[in-house]
C-alpha cells in the first residue's frame, strides 16, 4: 500500500483550551499508482488529512503509513501542493523547481537537469528564467507541480490545487496534471470540494461526513481515460457518480 490510514483521529487543542476533533476514526488505503480524491463539506478535516500525510503533525490516535512506514515527521517521499502555488517570488521558475532538491544533497548540475526535465514535462519549457509574477495562474500551478515532481515523491498530495483558476484554465490544467501524473505513475491524493473534478480525475472517491470527518463511502470510478479528464467529462456515468455524491453530502437538503 502506498498510503494507509488506520483508525486516525485528530484532536486540536484550541487556544482557549477547548478540544476540537477535526477527523475521527479515518480508515482508507491508496494503492500504488492510484488516484484517489477526497470530498466533503468544508471544515470536515480534508486539509488535516493532508497535513498528517505530509508529516507536518501526527494523529492523536491511529496511524498514517506511507509505503508501509508510520509517518512521524516531514516525509521526503511525500510532495504536496495547495491552492496557493507557494512559489518563492524572489526565485526564477527553475530555481523554484530546484528548491525541494537543495536540502537533499543533490549536486548542482543534477538538480538543474532534473528541474529542466520536470519543466519540460509540465509544458513550461522556455520559462526557466522567468519570475513567478511573470506567469499566469495556470502556469504557476504547473510550475508548482514541476517542483513537486522534482523530488521524485512516492505520493503527491493535492489540496484544492485548481480552485483558484478560472473555469477554462481549470479544465486545461486538470487535463495536463492528469496526463503528467499518469505518465509519472505517481500515487495521488486529491482533496477537492468540486464533485465533478473528483469524479473525472480519480480511480476512487472518498466521501467524508461533516466534522468530525469520517469516511462515509468509497466510490470506485470504473471508467477509462483517467489521464484525460476532458474526455471523461463527456461520459454519462460521470453525472451519475457526481449526483450520487451530491445526495450523500445532502447538498440539496442543506440548500433548503
Amino acid at each position, binding site marked *: 500500500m502506498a498510503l494507509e490510514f488506520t483508525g486516525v483521529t485528530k484532536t486540536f487543542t484550541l487556544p482557549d483550551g477547548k478540544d476540537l476533533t477535526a477527523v475521527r476514526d479515518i480508515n482508507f488505503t491508496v494503492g500504488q499508482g492510484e488516484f484517489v480524491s477526497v470530498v466533503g463539506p468544508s471544515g470536515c478535516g480534508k486539509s488535516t488529512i493532508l*497535513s498528517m500525510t*505530509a*508529516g*507536518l503533525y501526527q494523529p492523536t490516535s491511529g496511524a498514517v503509513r506511507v509505503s508501509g512506514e508510520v509517518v512521524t515527521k*516531514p*516525509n*521526503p517521499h*511525500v*510532495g*504536496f501542493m*495547495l491552492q*496557493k502555488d*507557494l512559489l*518563492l*517570488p*524572489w526565485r526564477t521558475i527553475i530555481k523554484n523547481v530546484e*528548491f*525541494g532538491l*537543495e*536540502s*537533499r544533497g543533490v549536486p548542482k548540475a543534477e538538480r538543474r537537469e532534473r528541474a529542466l526535465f520536470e519543466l519540460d514535462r509540465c509544458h513550461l519549457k522556455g520559462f526557466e528564467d522567468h*519570475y*513567478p*509574477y511573470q506567469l499566469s495562474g495556470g502556469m504557476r500551478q504547473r510550475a508548482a507541480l514541476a517542483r513537486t515532481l522534482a*523530488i521524485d515523491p512516492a505520493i503527491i498530495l493535492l489540496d484544492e490545487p485548481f480552485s483558484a483558476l478560472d473555469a477554462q484554465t481549470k479544465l486545461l490544467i486538470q487535463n495536463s496534471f492528469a496526463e503528467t501524473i499518469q505518465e509519472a505513475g505517481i500515487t495521488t491524493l486529491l482533496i477537492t470540494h468540486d464533485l465533478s473534478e473528483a469524479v473525472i480525475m480519480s480511480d476512487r472517491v472518498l466521501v467524508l461526513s461533516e466534522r468530525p470527518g469520517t469516511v462515509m463511502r468509497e466510490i470506485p470510478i470504473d471508467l477509462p481515460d483517467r489521464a484525460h479528464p476532458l474526455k471523461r467529462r463527456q461520459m454519462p456515468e460521470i453525472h451519475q457518480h457526481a449526483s450520487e455524491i451530491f445526495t450523500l453530502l445532502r447538498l440539496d437538503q442543506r440548500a433548503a
Partner: protein
Amino acid sequence: MSQASTQKLVAVAILALLLLIWQFLPPALGVPKYIVPTVSDMLTELGRMYRRENLIANVASTAIFTVLGFAIGSALGAAIGYLLGLSAFWERVLSPYILALQIAPKVAFAPLFIMWFGYNSTPKLLVTVLIVFFPVLVNVLAAMKTVDRDMVNLARAYSLNRWEIFKKVEFPSTLPNLMAGLRIASTLAVIGVTVGELVGGNTGLGFLISYGGGQANAAMVFNAIVLLTIIGIVLYSVLVWAEERLLHYIPKKDH
C-alpha cells in the same frame, strides 16, 4: 513631447518659481534678512561658511556620523528583530519593554548621554543608533510574524532545517519590510545626529545651527538645514536604489 519630459519641465519650473518667490517675496514684504534670508543671502553666507567655518569638515563629520549611526542602529535593530521573530517566547516577554522604548522620545536621551560620555562624538552616535534601531526592529519583527505559514510548512516538508528555512524562506520574505524599515530609519538618522550636535557638540551641521542661532545668523541656520536635508536625501536615495535592485521580482504598480 513625452510625458516624462513634460513632467521634468514642470518640476524645474516649480523649483525656479519657488526660488524666485524666496528671493523676492520676503524683501517685498519688508521681512529683514536676519528673520528670513533671501536665496542670494544664503549663497553669500555659504561662501563665508566655506572660508571661515570649516564647512567641509562639518558636513563630512555629520555625514559620517549619520551613516555610521544608521549602519550600527539598523544592524542591531535587524539582528534583534530576527532573533525575536524566531522566538515567540522572548518576543512575548520583551514586547512591553520594546513598546515603552519605542514610544519614549529618543532624542531626549541626548543630554543624559552627554552627562555620561562627555562632549565628544559618542553621545550623538548613541542617539542616532537608538533612534534608528526601533523602526528597523519593529518592521522586521512584524514581517517575521506574517511570513506565510504554508511556505514554511512546504520548506519543512522538503526537510529544510531551521537555519535553511530562515535563510531561504523567512529572510527573503521579510526583505520588503526590512527595506521599508531602513528607509524610515535613514530619515531618522539625520534627526539623531542633528539633535546630538545641537545639544552638545563642537562639530557638525547641528553645531553650526546652534552657533548660527546664537549669532542671529539666520542664513547660516538655513544653509545648515538645507545641507542636512541633502545628506538625508542622499542616504534615502541610496536605499531606494538598493531596494529597487533587491526587490526587482515584485511587479511595479502602475499609477
